[in-house]
């Protein structure tokens, strides 16, 4: 499958993420001749262990998450970032997790937005919102280069595209930028041939950075 980079919006110090930025990014895609293709959606769940005795904490991961991707509706992906684990499963694994009752999904987030075709690239720009809420928590962008499945072979052309994108977006004077997270897929047991598991890992890393760097505005 084509190589994909997942970027996230990093606001400048003192700024917040907003729907206006999402709209500007969408308009930017169209301004560089992106053809709108329709909507996309992904869902991410953070799982927390259920403990019978709250005072007794076995050594369990705090960053266990599951994600369903727009491109793979019949699959589900688990990532434990701290352990460098990624697992692909059928969507029915979610029913198994419910039956086990050992972990429950405590926080769920939607990623949704529009998709654009730009020559050999496919771009998805979307907001990050908690389920049952409209308050935007972040913005993500997927950049896919359709002709190449090799992570390394696609690197240069992806970097060039992101440069062009940054340049186009900078004309809109927004307080922040899209950031790509460099990560070592090999640590997760993933190879050079791109797969949906690579996408799952990128989303997990992006969420970790988003939580760490996106701070609410402190009102004096």
């Amino acid at each position, binding site marked *: 499958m084509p190589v994909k980079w997942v970027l996230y919006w990093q606001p400048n110090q003192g700024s917040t993420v907003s729907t206006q930025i999402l709209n500007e990014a969408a308009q930017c895609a169209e301004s560089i001749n992106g053809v709108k293709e329709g909507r996309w959606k992904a869902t991410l769940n953070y799982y927390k*262990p*259920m*403990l*019978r*005795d709250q005072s*007794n904490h*076995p050594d*369990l*991961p705090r960053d*266990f998450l599951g994600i369903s991707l727009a491109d793979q509706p019949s699959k589900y992906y*688990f990532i*434990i970032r701290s*352990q460098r*684990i*990624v*697992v*692909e*499963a*059928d*969507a*029915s*694994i979610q*029913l*198994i997790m419910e*039956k*086990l*009752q*050992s*972990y429950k999904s405590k926080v769920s987030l939607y990623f949704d937005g529009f998709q654009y075709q730009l020559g050999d690239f496919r771009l998805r720009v979307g907001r990050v919102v908690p389920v049952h809420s409209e308050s935007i928590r972040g913005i993500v962008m997927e950049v896919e280069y359709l002709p190449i499945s090799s992570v390394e072979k696609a690197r240069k052309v992806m970097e060039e595209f992101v440069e062009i994108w940054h340049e186009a977006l900078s004309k809109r004077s927004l307080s922040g930028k899209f950031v790509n997270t460099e990560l070592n897929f090999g640590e997760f*047991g993933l190879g050079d041939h791109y797969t949906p*598991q690579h996408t799952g890992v990128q989303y997990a890393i992006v969420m970790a950075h988003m939580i760490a760097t996106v701070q609410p505005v402190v009102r004096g």
Partner: protein
Amino acid sequence: MECVVQGIIETQHVEALEILLQGLCGVQRERLRVHELTLKSVPNLGVVSSEVRLLCDLDQQPEPTWTVKHVGGALRGAGADQISVLVRTMIESKVSKNALRMFYSLGYKLDHELLKVGFAFHFQRTAHISVSVSSVNKMPKIHAIDEAVPVTPGMQIVVVTAPATPENYSEVAAAVSSFCEFLAPLVHLSKPFISTGVVPTAAAAAASLMSDGGGTTL
């Protein structure tokens, strides 16, 4: 959900059973070599203690494939007692190869593991029925599948399963039950945990099957 029955057969009669199944099912048999790991949650994890099975199909190419399976409670009550097969909740999911590592990280420990070696037939007869005949083997050391030895030498287990839904389990159970009657000369099939032993006349039935390649009507 699935319907399940199982029984035991002496290894010496397995070849005859295979001939019978070949005639009944009308499909090619498939080799079965499955490493089954049963994992249990550590103390304190979960609303209740939980168990999950990981099955590694060792015969798949180019590399083994993994499935996660959750077996739930059986149908109970007067209705369930009337049905000669076990009806229980069951959910399966294919998973990538590091699922075991993930469950270990999530607080699951290996409770026991088995290696099942034999063959299976998968066919359609009102329901999608699977029949497996296998020896159940235990490992002297953890994950040492090459050193596995039979749990009960000389005996193999026959398992008949069919997927079902809450809407159709009666029909599926009837289809499984009806199919099992054809196997009765060689193996008694019943709900798991209700052992009926081997069929005392299996030797004669097997001899008959082996002598004319399965052409005799039992």
